């Protein structure tokens, strides 16, 4: 009797749980969230079991994570909005370096960092808009236009200041704003959390986001209904450029210097984070939370491989597997959605 009654009680709760899991997986960022949560639990358990060999939970390690996430986070948020609008920007890594160098050189020449930083963002926005205008005016794939941008602005870095490292000494007020500590949290980490909230509201609760999704999801339909798709796309390009510059500000404040080659490959990591986070390469699908989880996942895996002292090439192989796996999953979800 007792056994059968507990059985009877267990069955509905199990189906309820499985339907909850299915609901979660059906959400745009659901599957990535499950993967992320499982890896976190595994890391935390391992960190508690082997506190000396696997220092995942040590304060030093958590600080490193908090400092590492915001830079890629900013780049990925910008790249992600643009991907949802149906376009790519491969030039953000170069723009990130260029704007950071301009800012550092200007501050070195005596300009206030509080002026130089907005200037950097403005340049990032302008380059983004230029990419957008060229792409739309000539009807080109943004992949090609921004591939050109990647090489052009990488060269422009060397033209502007040569292949030398630039020191960045903005003064204490600026430093504490972008790399200080508040309530035990790194300032850059607080910035990225704020930006994730703002982007979430903008993309999912504001008309602008709705138009971005419509533009990327079905350009012809968005045009037919009277949305100015070109203006939306140029705005998305501008956001990608501006966020690249903001990432440069955070990175430069943290390190205190800029290397001319530091942005190489970051654009691909940002796009990778977006794909892992469930964004469609065709546009129109994805979520801001997904993008951020994608960034966190890349950094968690990097961190774990560092902690277990794995050689660096494992990292790239791991992320490669993750990207392709995520893309397969997205394709599967998309097919189901449009069946």
């Amino acid at each position, binding site marked *: 009797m007792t056994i059968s009654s507990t059985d009877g009680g267990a069955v509905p709760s199990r189906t309820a749980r499985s339907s909850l899991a299915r609901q979660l997986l059906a959400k745009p960022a659901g599957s990535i969230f499950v993967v992320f949560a499982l890896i976190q639990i595994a890391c935390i358990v391992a960190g508690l079991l082997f506190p000396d060999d696997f220092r995942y939970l040590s304060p030093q390690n958590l600080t490193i994570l908090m400092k590492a996430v915001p830079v890629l986070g900013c780049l990925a948020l910008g790249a992600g909005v643009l991907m949802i609008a149906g376009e790519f920007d491969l030039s953000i890594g170069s723009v990130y370096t260029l704007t950071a160098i301009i800012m550092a050189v200007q501050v070195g020449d005596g300009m206030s960092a509080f002026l130089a930083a907005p200037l950097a963002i403005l340049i990032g926005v302008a380059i983004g808009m230029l990419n957008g205008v060229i792409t739309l005016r000539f009807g080109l794939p943004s992949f090609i236009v921004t591939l050109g941008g990647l090489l052009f602005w990488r060269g422009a870095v060397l033209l502007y200041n040569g292949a030398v490292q630039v020191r960045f000494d903005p003064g204490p007020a600026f430093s504490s704003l972008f790399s200080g500590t508040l309530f035990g949290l790194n300032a850059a980490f607080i910035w990225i959390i704020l930006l994730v909230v703002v982007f979430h509201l903008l993309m999912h609760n504001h008309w602008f986001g709705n138009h971005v999704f419509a533009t990327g*999801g079905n350009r012809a339909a968005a045009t037919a209904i009277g949305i100015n798709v070109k203006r939306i796309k140029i705005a998305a390009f501008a956001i990608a450029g501006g966020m690249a510059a903001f990432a440069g500000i955070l990175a430069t404040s943290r390190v205190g210097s800029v290397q001319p080659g530091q942005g190489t490959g970051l654009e691909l990591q940002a796009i990778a984070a977006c794909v892992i986070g469930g964004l*469609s390469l065709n546009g129109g699908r994805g979520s801001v939370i997904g993008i951020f989880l994608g960034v966190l996942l890349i950094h968690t895996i990097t961190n774990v491989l560092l902690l277990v002292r794995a050689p660096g090439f494992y990292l790239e192989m791991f992320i490669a597997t993750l990207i392709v796996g995520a893309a397969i999953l997205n394709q599967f979800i998309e097919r189901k959605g449009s069946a």
Partner: protein
Amino acid sequence: MTSAAPLLGLHDVSKRFGTLTALKNLSFHVNEGEVVGLLGDNGAGKSTTVNLISGIHQPTSGYISVDGKQTLFTCRTDSADAGVETIYQNTALVDSLSITRNIFMGRERVNGMGFLKQSEMREIAMEVLKSAVHISGIDSPDKLVGQLSGGQKQAVAIARAVFFKRRVLLLDEPTSALSVRETEALLNQVLKLKAENVSSVLVTHNLYHAYQVCDRFVIMSHGTKVFDVAKADTTIGQLTEYVVLT
């Protein structure tokens, strides 16, 4: 009293694309609460006519009138402002967005800061789907449009037109992708809107569908009108003859 001027009129409209004359002195009109069938074989100029009325093309000569007043539709928005809603074969919907977001796409309800009034839009969408469009299978306005069938998608497009108080629906080959049951539902929808004084232009080469709902038929051939007749004065046999023989 409604004025005697027709709701929508085409006056001696011609359209040339380079050396190709797509339309030649085409004139016809649509009255308030009237369902007009625009018939003709492939290449008769039906699609060009639809594009002119929805503002995608502009006439080379002649003009379009709304309520008897000469107007020029320079873009899609102009025709929408005049109350024309075009429902295409491939309806203008975004598969990756919900029904609610599609209905309000480009015309979102927002607060002063531009943030979406999501619960308000959702309630309206639910109401419109329930009252205006009776197509089975749509149980929630949160469903993604990509998950709907062809008929359900057109129902969403019609719901959008109904909610935004369109005066003329321009249905371009609406039944070509639909099942028999969905076609029936769509044609009933057209009649229901007519009862609410919404006019429709049904562009089709399926005479039987047109004969079922239209009050008047305009038959086109080689870019111009060859026959314009009220339903009471003709038979489906005569219509077929005109479409086939002219």
